[in-house]
């Protein structure tokens, strides 16, 4: 089962049909998180801390409770007493105590915007007025925002019980470093000392936000019998169920989470912020309660991806072969321990064959919102530093930067930083495709420069449950537990139609709620088309087998004499050889030949492979203003097999533009008071349509032997290379190496005009 299909020409895989949810979305009918309303619903609102760090001396909610129309008020005291429990749901491991504390502060607020109390009222206006009646007495504490400041002796401590993990001997004093990770092999110091050429640099960046356009929203309804329903937009409704049940200490089966359409996530919707609070308000009021964030709240209290300080040293011999690499970085975790350092260590320099490698990452707590996964979490930051350093090294060596990468690129069998060998990766194929692409050799105009950068992301598999069922007329429904953020229903329908060899429109795909399908991990980690797709193929294959068995019964022939061919059961032996039946004909008689036909596949998908990309970027720099215009952009990526190429290209284009935004203008800006200064789309400058050109994509297809159609994950890789690709292009245009993001006009100008 699941043997790779290598010869057969695909009928559906690789085609570009219209997505099944498309018409709903172009006509405004699709229901997203903020669109859902329940009968009798109350409107909730959340009071947030104005201080970056303070002890909560008291919260007086009596006036708010007395306001006409207010039905419930909640604070952190409404959570049950929790025991520490580290769970891997959503993205990465979190302690449920921290999850609960982030939903509503308990004794301390840890960042500006930290939720302190919540109300539910009959109108949104009353709910907002009630917030203004809640009296919170704060004892302000010194706060810390910077990475090095947070690690300094005497820095304000966020958590008195936080001892750095991964340090030997175990620390005796608490610290803001939650974890230190170190991997590598060889003697880096000696190899660096002996290298003919070395480069070193220190790179920095501020946190950035995922920037999904749909703010978080949910409705929760918790009945007196303990059973609850939650409607929300999330990357993983099973994660919402698990986390909400855990922080409220109730059985998971008592919560049914209905996934609504989701307006973007990029990793930022893999946890809970609102759902447990809405549950508490619902329990107290006896009514469904809606909670939604404003854009301001999204910026202050959700996401972001960590900012970073990264130090890199790379050494090469005179032929340009890399001999040693040392990478050490610190990432912002924000208020609670985050997950990015592990991925950062794994994603730093493993794409090159280097005998002496050491990568060290430290997670640093500070008075900022808790960092959350953002598209290839932890990888773009460290990649920016490494791929910039390699560009610099190419300059020192006098070797073409693409050639230098090819000369050192890791291939199947080479060890990753962890020591685990690479599987069937397509990194060299991407570099070869870049070299062959007309973009790489196109002429440049005045003030223009070209940069290239490569990068990778490990991708993921994991648990997915799928049911494929046959309707009485021979049409198929594929039910998955994977929220569809970017067209995955189309990809699932394609794969099922491929297995069943029936028209695409004969297969419809839905996202089922937590009570209607088995456990499925979040849509994230570039796992859905791979892992859920694998389950779809398995379930569809089982249905196909059943169809053949049923046809055999209906024809009264031996089971082995029926095959599935060209979308129909065909009798291949005996008297009835050549007899055919469609799925519809078999389905019509299914009840009297064994019952309805359906198959379930519940798997923990293994065999995922990482994705690699190489991006070529041309910029034009205005030498007087420092303004950088992206003139041309080509993103090349090994996608395994593109099931629906439009949506694969779309992932690559979207990721590239997010990376361009990160490179050029996006950054959290904090004022001296520790408050976020740019909590809106006007001053948090994501790229608009006029900021970018078309993003050319090249899909390199090096199939994954462990997926029936060769799928590798595609969603995350494309955000990894752009940061350095843009920086390297700016270097090409100006001769200046920018090591601090964002490379906004004022930064570029300062580099070009050091005297001001």
């Amino acid at each position, binding site marked *: 089962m699941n043997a790779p299909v290598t010869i057969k020409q695909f009928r559906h895989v690789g085609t*570009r049909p*219209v*997505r099944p*949810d*498309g*018409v709903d*979305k*172009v*006509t*405004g*009918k*699709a*229901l*997203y998180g*903020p*669109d859902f309303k329940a009968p009798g619903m109350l409107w909730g609102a959340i009071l947030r801390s104005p201080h970056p760090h303070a002890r909560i001396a008291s919260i007086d909610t009596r006036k708010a409770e007395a306001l006409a129309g207010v039905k419930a008020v909640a604070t952190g005291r409404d959570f049950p007493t929790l025991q520490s429990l580290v769970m891997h749901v959503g993205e990465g491991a979190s302690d449920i105590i921290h999850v609960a504390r982030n939903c509503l502060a308990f004794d301390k607020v840890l960042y500006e915007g930290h939720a302190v109390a919540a109300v539910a009222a009959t109108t949104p*206006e009353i709910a907002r007025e009630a917030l203004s009646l809640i009296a919170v007495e704060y004892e302000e504490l010194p706060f810390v925002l910077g990475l090095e400041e947070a690690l300094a002796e005497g820095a304000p401590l966020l958590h008195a019980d936080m001892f750095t993990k991964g340090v030997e001997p175990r620390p005796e004093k608490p610290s803001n470093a939650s974890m230190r990770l170190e991997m590598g092999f060889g003697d880096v110091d000696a190899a660096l000392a002996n290298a003919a050429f070395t480069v070193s640099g220190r790179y920095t960046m501020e946190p950035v936000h*995922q*920037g*999904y*356009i*749909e*703010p978080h929203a949910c409705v929760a309804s918790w009945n007196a019998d303990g059973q609850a329903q939650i409607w929300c937009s999330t990357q993983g409704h099973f994660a919402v169920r698990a986390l909400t049940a855990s922080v409220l200490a109730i059985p998971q089966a008592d919560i049914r989470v209905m996934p609504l*359409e*989701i*307006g*973007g*996530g*990029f990793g930022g919707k893999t946890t809970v912020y609102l759902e447990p609070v809405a549950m508490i308000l619902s329990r107290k009021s006896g009514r469904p309660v809606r909670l939604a964030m*404003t*854009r301001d709240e999204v910026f202050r209290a959700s996401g972001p991806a960590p900012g970073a300080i990264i130090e890199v040293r790379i050494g090469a011999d005179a032929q340009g072969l890399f001999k040693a690499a040392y990478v050490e970085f610190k990432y912002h975790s924000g208020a609670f321990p985050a997950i990015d350092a592990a991925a950062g260590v794994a994603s730093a320099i493993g794409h090159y064959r280097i005998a002496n490698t050491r990568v060290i990452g430290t997670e640093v707590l500070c008075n900022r919102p808790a960092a959350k996964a953002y598209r290839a979490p932890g990888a773009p930051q460290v990649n920016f530093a490494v791929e910039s350093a390699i560009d610099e090294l190419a300059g020192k060596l006098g070797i073409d930067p693409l050639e230098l990468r090819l000369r050192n690129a890791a291939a199947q069998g080479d060890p990753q930083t962890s020591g685990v060998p690479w599987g069937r990766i397509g990194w060299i194929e991407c570099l070869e495709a870049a070299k062959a692409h007309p973009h790489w050799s196109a002429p440049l105009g005045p003030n223009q420069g070209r940069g290239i950068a490569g990068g990778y992301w490990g991708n993921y598999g994991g648990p997915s449950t799928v049911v494929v069922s046959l309707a009485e007329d021979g049409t198929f429904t594929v039910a998955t537990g994977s929220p569809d*953020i*970017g*067209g995955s229903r189309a990809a699932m329908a394609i794969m099922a139609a491929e297995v069943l060899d029936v028209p695409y429109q004969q297969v419809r795909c839905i996202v089922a709620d937590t009570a209607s399908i088995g456990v499925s991990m979040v849509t994230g980690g570039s796992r859905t088309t791979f892992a859920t797709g694998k389950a779809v193929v398995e379930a569809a294959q089982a249905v196909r087998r059943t169809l053949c068995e049923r046809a055999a019964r209906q024809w009264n022939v031996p089971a082995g004499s029926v095959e599935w061919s060209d979308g129909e059961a065909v009798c291949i032996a005996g008297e009835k050889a050549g007899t055919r039946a469609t799925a519809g004909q078999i389905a019509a008689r299914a009840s009297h030949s064994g019952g309805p036909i359906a198959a379930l596949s519940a798997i923990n998908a293994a065999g995922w492979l990482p994705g690699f990309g190489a991006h070529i970027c041309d910029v034009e720099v205005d030498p007087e203003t420092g303004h950088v215009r992206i003139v041309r952009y080509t993103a090349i990526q090994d996608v395994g097999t593109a099931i*629906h190429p*439009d*949506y694969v*290209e*779309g*992932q690559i*284009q*979207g*990721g*590239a*533009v*997010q990376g361009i935004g990160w490179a050029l203008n996006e950054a959290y800006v904090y004022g001296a008071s520790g408050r976020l200064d740019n909590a*809106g*789309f*006007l001053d948090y400058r*994501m*790229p*608009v*349509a*006029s*900021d*970018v050109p*078309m*993003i050319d994509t090249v899909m390199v297809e090096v199939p994954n032997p462990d997926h029936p159609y060769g799928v590798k994950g595609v969603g995350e890789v494309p955000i990894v290379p752009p940061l350095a690709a843009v920086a390297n292009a700016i270097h090409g245009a100006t001769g200046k190496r920018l090591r601090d993001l964002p490379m906004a006009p004022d930064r570029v100008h300062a580099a070009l005009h050091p005297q001001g």
Partner: protein
Amino acid sequence: MSRIHVSTTVNGDAAEFLCDPAASLLDALRDSLGLTGSKEGCGSGDCGACTVVLDGEMVCSCLVFAAEAEGRAVRTIEGVAEGSVLHPVQQKFLEHAALQCGFCTPGFIVAAKALLDRNPDPTETEVRYWLAGNLCRCTGYDKIVRAVMDAGAQLRQERTPA
């Protein structure tokens, strides 16, 4: 403060609602009239997800008081298709896969239709600047721009007398 009674026209049909004086047109469309196709991404006119056409001009409905709609004509995403026949912009968004999550899509479609209504043959640059008030975080804009230009081509073809 008591609520204001507003009589207006939405997608060609008379519509009435009561609103808080501080409510936005977007609030009224979504919460009073049940037209949730217009989305709120920011509430400050910076994302364009709530774009509607008010008396012939596209605006952010989050930056219009609901009370201002009195006597005016509003067109929303729900009024772009004619019955079940999609507008060419909608059709081209589907064909070009110009949406991923789809949350910004209603605003883009209303804005793109407004552009093509006045200029059916825009350049890529004109499309990009016209749509600069509509944020999309998923697509990188590439397929959106292609869809809009292709819709323009189709509209031009439809309008050319045979």
